[in-house]
């Protein structure tokens, strides 16, 4: 095989061969090669197919802006990713790569038939067609379009790799370690500030890596670079390579992704694949350089057509000649330098074609010296070669028109349309841009961030100029941080400053309607498409972009935006700023999802909150359910039991004997202070003043709109201390709401609020034997009906543990809630469990809790209420104080719709045929209506009730409380169920079971 590697050139390690595969074929490259440079060294230009027309494509760049050479990369199972830029991916032994968007293979692709229907598939054609017949869109056209689109294939396996994230704070972050960034880093670091210098490439140096001939301060550029890096490190500069600044966020927060393993053959153990850095820098210097512009002419997309600067990079950095017989087409001096470098490395440069009439005499004499033919004032009008350029057609330009063509055979065509400053991150800051007519480009103007942009990013050319600019940016930020620094002088020889002119489409003798002159290579957008979009009324670059998809490819418009703008402006006959520049959006280059997700995968996606008793539940076979971030035991099945059987047994045992339940997830707030009672009066609907210490009350909390927000039993532990409980899900919200009112509306109240949810383990004991079980363990309270009646609370000890004991019931049975310091929770549970064995104790979970409370008509906020329910709707008007001057929600409750006569009330439902209703099922009065039906409510809770021997349900029904005994209908898909409206209290309406029978106790 012919090799295109040039001895003595490049920075790759020719002594260290590396093998990899491309479409199953083995290739050899050198350590330090990218996939693109290694394939080019093997003479392979064809690396992919384009999006729409499936045209053969090769790399057009040598960097992260690459639109064409996208490949699939694979390491092993689950380690595959599509659309990897071959120009960035480093090779390693064993790397598998594949070309994309082709069938059956890269060299012969059936999809290329689209290329022949090119006229039909012009910009916006989707919008004009595929409408007839109507149902064909869904069945025929869209599946076809979808299949044709897309580039690579998605991964289909779970990713075994890990991703990390880190925070970093620094004085100065410098993005880009080319000459500008290096000079800036040095100037800032000398001033004594803490500097981080990053670059997306494998090594620092930027353009210097492609310009070994330049001499900086008397040293060859590569020697200067090496010395400078040593000196920066000794100044304490943190240098990070393979690290891309992906986005610039508020107040100098930069997101950066560091690639850690994609270049390694053997993965070190426990090393993440990528790491996301959240950087907060006091000052940021953007030194991202400039990108070379392609020229726009018929056939500019053929493999072998490449940016001249990139060819120079392949030669000087990788030691690869991209062609042995290249031709240059340019409108800028810089391509001449590329030609000279290639010629000096042994290439037979067939011609330098320049669109300009006059070119610097010095460049011309250098070309003459090397025997390179020059064609000034010439254009390229066509290229040929099916899978690789084999010749080009060159024509003289006369008065803007192309004359007769001449064919020049070649194996590469190197183009340059000049350079565009890289303004992506600057644009993320919402920085403003200004149009520079001389350079035909936008330049940075103001930014709201503490951000300095330097070097080629602000339109300066030449190594010396950018070194000086970088250094002064470094000094500037050091001074902004209160440090002194000084610029250093930089003298560069063999600097190649250069100038050029900007071009729209190159002049051609071809019918402009037929020319396939590509602007966005990947998305197959041609100059003609852009002009068509303008002709059809697209007048802003945003419209042109969206209509043609120019700039929306995976290079994010790095190659296409400025050419697109210039052509659109020309078509509109307006200056570019009036046509606008599309916004650059993060990330700078496509970024792995895993890097964003970081550690937040699997179990770590979100924390799982567990109570102290959770481990017991786990050991005893509980089935869990997520409730907010908590996991709670749902039921405790015995061998062979399903949920219904287990719940039935748990209910039965609790009502007959005693049940134990972990209520630790309930929110708990300590309300303390001289004004605690006043605060409670204002927050909750209920009156609190007369509640004696040692007594509890069910509290109802509304929003100021009058709707129920939360509820819970509240104990008055002492005159100025309330132990408030909230729902599991509402704890944080209630605490925040209380703090809000206390701090903002009533700062005069002398009250302290403390969230104590996680300080207490809470165990509920319910059942006829609850008191009998508990009494022997309690010290300090006598558990008799007289001494400690229902709705009492006290501080005492339980099994030797300090406790807050509540006599409350969410089941209708004798009930206690025992709060002990959280770490003692499991010990108390086990003690009670042990002591309960002789009483036939059962553990029960949330499902049984739900059934038992529903039998008593106790509501679950969020299930029986939904944010649109008032206390009166819920049948809890009794909980609303009538004589208070104000409480949260009092005024809201008076609003017209909240006192309307047709509100939905919470009621009980009993089906006539004993069917268990579906929760969420809708209720109607008239079952015979046509759809759409008038719905009058819905089933909020529905269970089989063991105690009642039948299913029961709670429901919100329009005017339900006035319709007791009436029949309503629940239309199901297969039939309609009739149900009678009843009270919400199904079981023990007289509440006789909560009383501890006298004489039962010791």
């Amino acid at each position, binding site marked *: 095989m012919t090799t295109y590697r040039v001895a003595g050139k490049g920075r790759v390690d020719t002594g260290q061969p590396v093998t990899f595969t491309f479409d199953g074929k083995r290739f050899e490259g050198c350590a330090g090669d990218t996939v693109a440079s290694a394939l080019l060294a093997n003479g392979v230009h064809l690396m992919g197919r384009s999006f729409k027309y499936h045209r053969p494509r090769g790399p057009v760049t040598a960097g992260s802006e690459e639109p064409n050479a996208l490949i699939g990369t694979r390491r092993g199972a689950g380690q595959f990713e599509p659309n990897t830029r071959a120009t960035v991916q480093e090779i390693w032994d064993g790397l598998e790569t594949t070309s994309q968007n082709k069938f059956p293979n890269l060299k012969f692709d059936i999809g290329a038939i689209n290329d022949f229907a090119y006229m039909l598939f012009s910009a916006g054609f989707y919008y004009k067609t595929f409408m*007839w017949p109507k149902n064909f869109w869904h069945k025929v056209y869209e599946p076809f379009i979808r299949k044709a689109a897309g580039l690579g294939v998605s991964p289909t396996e*779970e990713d075994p790799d890990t991703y990390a994230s880190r925070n970093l704070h620094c004085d100065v972050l410098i993005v880009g370690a080319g000459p500008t960034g290096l000079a800036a880093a040095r100037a800032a670091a000398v001033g004594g500030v803490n500097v981080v210098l990053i670059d997306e490439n494998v090594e620092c140096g930027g353009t210097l890596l492609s310009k070994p001939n330049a001499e900086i301060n008397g040293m060859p550029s590569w020697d200067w670079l090496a010395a400078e890096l040593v000196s920066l490190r000794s100044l304490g500069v943190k240098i990070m390579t393979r690290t891309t600044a992906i986005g610039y966020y508020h107040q100098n927060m930069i997101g950066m992704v560091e690639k850690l393993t994609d270049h390694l053959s053997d993965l070190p153990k426990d090393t993440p694949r990528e790491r996301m850095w959240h950087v907060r820098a006091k000052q940021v210097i953007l030194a991202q350089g400039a990108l070379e512009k392609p020229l726009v002419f018929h056939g500019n997309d053929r493999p072998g057509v490449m940016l001249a600067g990139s060819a120079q990079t392949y030669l000087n950095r990788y030691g690869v000649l991209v062609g042995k017989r290249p031709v240059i087409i340019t409108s800028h001096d810089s391509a001449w330098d590329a030609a000279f470098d290639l010629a000096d490395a042994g290439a037979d440069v067939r011609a330098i074609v320049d669109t300009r009439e006059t070119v610097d005499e010095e460049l011309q004499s250098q070309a003459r010296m090397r025997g390179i033919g020059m064609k000034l004032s010439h254009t390229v009008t066509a290229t040929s070669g099916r899978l690789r350029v084999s010749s080009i057609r060159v024509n003289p330009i006369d008065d803007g028109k192309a004359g007769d063509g001449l064919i020049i055979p070649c194996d590469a065509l190197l183009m340059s349309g000049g350079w565009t400053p890289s303004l992506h991150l600057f644009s993320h800051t*919402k920085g403003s841009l200004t149009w520079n007519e001389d350079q035909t480009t936008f330049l940075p103007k103001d930014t709201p961030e503490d951000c300095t942009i330097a070097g080629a990013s602000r339109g300066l050319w030449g190594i010396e100029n950018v070194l000086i600019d970088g250094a002064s940016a470094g000094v500037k930020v050091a001074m902004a941080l209160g440090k002194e620094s000084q610029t250093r002088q930089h003298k560069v020889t063999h600097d190649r400053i250069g100038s050029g002119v900007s071009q729209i489409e190159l002049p051609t003798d071809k019918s402009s309607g037929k020319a396939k002159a590509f602007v966005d290579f990947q998305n197959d957008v041609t100059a003609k498409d852009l002009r068509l979009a303008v002709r059809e009324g697209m007048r802003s670059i945003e419209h042109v972009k*969206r209509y043609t998809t120019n700039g929306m490819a*995976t290079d994010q418009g790095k190659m296409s935006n400025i050419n697109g703008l210039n052509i659109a402006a020309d078509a509109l006959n307006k200056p570019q700023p009036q046509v606008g520049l599309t916004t650059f*959006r993060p990330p700078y280059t496509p970024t792995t999802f895993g890097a964003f997700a970081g550690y937040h995968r699997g179990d770590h996606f979100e924390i799982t909150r567990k109570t102290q008793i959770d481990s017991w539940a786990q050991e005893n076979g509980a089935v869990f359910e997520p409730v907010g971030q908590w996991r709670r035991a749902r039921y405790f099945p015995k061998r062979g039991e399903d949920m219904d059987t287990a719940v039935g047994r748990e209910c039965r045992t609790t009502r007959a004997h005693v049940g134990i339940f972990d209520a630790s997830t309930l929110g708990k707030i300590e309300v303390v202070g001289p004004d605690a009672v006043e605060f409670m009066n204002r927050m909750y609907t209920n009156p609190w003043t007369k509640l004696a210490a040692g007594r509890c009350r069910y509290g109802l909390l509304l929003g100021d709109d009058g709707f129920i927000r939360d509820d819970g039993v509240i104990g008055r532990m002492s005159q100025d201390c309330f132990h408030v409980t909230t729902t599991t899900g509402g704890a944080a919200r209630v605490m925040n709401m209380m703090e809000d009112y206390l701090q903002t509306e009533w700062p005069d109240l002398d009250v302290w609020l403390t969230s104590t949810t996680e300080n207490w383990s809470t165990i509920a004991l319910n059942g006829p034997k609850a008191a009998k079980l508990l009494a022997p363990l309690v010290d300090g309270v006598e558990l008799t009906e007289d001494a400690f009646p229902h709705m009492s609370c006290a501080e005492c000890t339980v099994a030797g543990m300090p406790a807050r004991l509540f006599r409350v019931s969410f089941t209708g049975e004798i009930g206690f809630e025992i709060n002990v310091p959280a770490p003692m929770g499991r010990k108390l549970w086990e003690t009670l469990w042990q002591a309960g064995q002789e009483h036939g104790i059962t553990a029960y979970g949330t499902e049984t809790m739900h059934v038992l409370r529903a039998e008593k008509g106790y509501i679950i906020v969020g299930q029986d209420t939904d944010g649109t329910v008032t206390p009166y709707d819920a049948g809890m008007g009794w909980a609303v104080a009538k004589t208070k001057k104000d409480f949260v929600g009092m005024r*809201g409750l008076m609003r*017209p719709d909240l006192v309307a006569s047709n509100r939905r009330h919470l009621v009980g439902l009993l089906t006539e045929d004993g069917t268990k209703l579906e929760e969420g099922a809708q209720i109607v009065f008239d079952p015979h209506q046509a759809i759409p039906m008038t719905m009058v409510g819905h089933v909020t809770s529905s269970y089989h009730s063991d105690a009642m021997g039948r299913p029961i349900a709670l429901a919100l029904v329009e005017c339900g409380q006035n319709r007791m005994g009436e029949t309503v209908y629940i239309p199901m898909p297969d039939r309609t169920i009739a149900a009678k409206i009843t009270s919400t209290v199904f079981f023990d309406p007289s509440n006789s079971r909560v009383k501890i029978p006298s004489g039962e106790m010791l």
Partner: protein
Amino acid sequence: MTRFNAFNLLKNAVSSNKNWTEQWPDSQPKDEYDVVIVGAGGHGLGAAYYLAKEHGITNVAVIDKGWLGGGNTGRNTTIIRSNYLYDESAKLYDHSVDLWENLSQELNYNVMYSRRGVLMLAHNVHDVQSFSRHIHANRLNGVDNRWLTPQECKDYCPPLSISQHARYPVMGGALQERAGTARHDAVAWGYARGAAARGVDIIQNCAVTAIRRHPDGSVAGVETAKGFIKAKKVAVSAAGHTSVVMQTADVRLPLESYPLQALVSEPVKPIFPCVVMSNAVHAYISQSDKGELVIGSGTDQYTSYSQRGGLPLIEHTVAAITEIFPMFNRMRMLRKWGGIVDVTPDRSAIISKTPVPNLYVNCGWGTGGFKATPGAAHTFAWTIAKDTPHPINAPFTLERFQTGRLIDEAAAAAVAH
């Protein structure tokens, strides 16, 4: 207007597409209009289209401070569905879906309405109860929506992980098959073309700086960057900027504007057949016809007009996606962007008359305005033309905030739009 049909398409292809004409002219403002619509998004352009087509009111200008379709119309994740809980919402959104289904033919512009199904995932018992309530209510309202088991969810959307070891395992899902996506830009362009063909002026890059009122309080016209324009009626449909515009007429609205972000991946071959929404995990995803995974994020916590949005929210969004679709972990994000959404206290829209005679407003769509585009535009046009709401938008008044008759989908279900 050149009609789009197979013949014209071929004819133009043969003539190198040089004879296509502009889809709408770049109009300059006249002195006076019957109706001035502020905001040239899908909603505003659509309202102009229906005013002209259904109400014969063609002396209409749609004015925008930027380019048409450049606001939330062009920035959303294009989800269309109508399986809302309350009758009011279900009627409005289902009316929209009815219009969506014929919109390409109606406008002679392919808006690529893709009826690929929207699957909403349940991850806890509360979700299951809530979805059940939705499904039953939808059925009785004639809106399609049905329950799928986890395995059925997986069959419908193969990339989905239904592992019971997930942090929030999938407990099932609600599927609306008639729901789907559309090509957002095409909606704005199609309405613009249709409206312009009927005589509507579309005036771009012309900021409305104030609404002017007659001494009797009624609307007189609008001050713009291009001078004063007299108008018999003014209709505001300016999304995140609605409250800024309305304030100039002394109308204060129950709106707050928040940044909302969205993102796309690099394009890949078809892998994702439908739309999946998971409110519990905060993930909203579909795949565009171009092949990109289109992913919706949430709003930042603070009000803002900056269109910037923070990184942590994006990280959370992507984590949510890879949680439910672990196979996408090695996919790459191509770009993310921000919009400004106007949110009402009950997260339902306002399509209403205002206290100012002849001033109308269509706003408060929060994160869900795209799907409503045709229905909102259609009923808004009715409201403007007849100075009285269409029965479908009658509940979406400003007054409801006083009476308390809110349409609180979010409170009812903890379901994001």
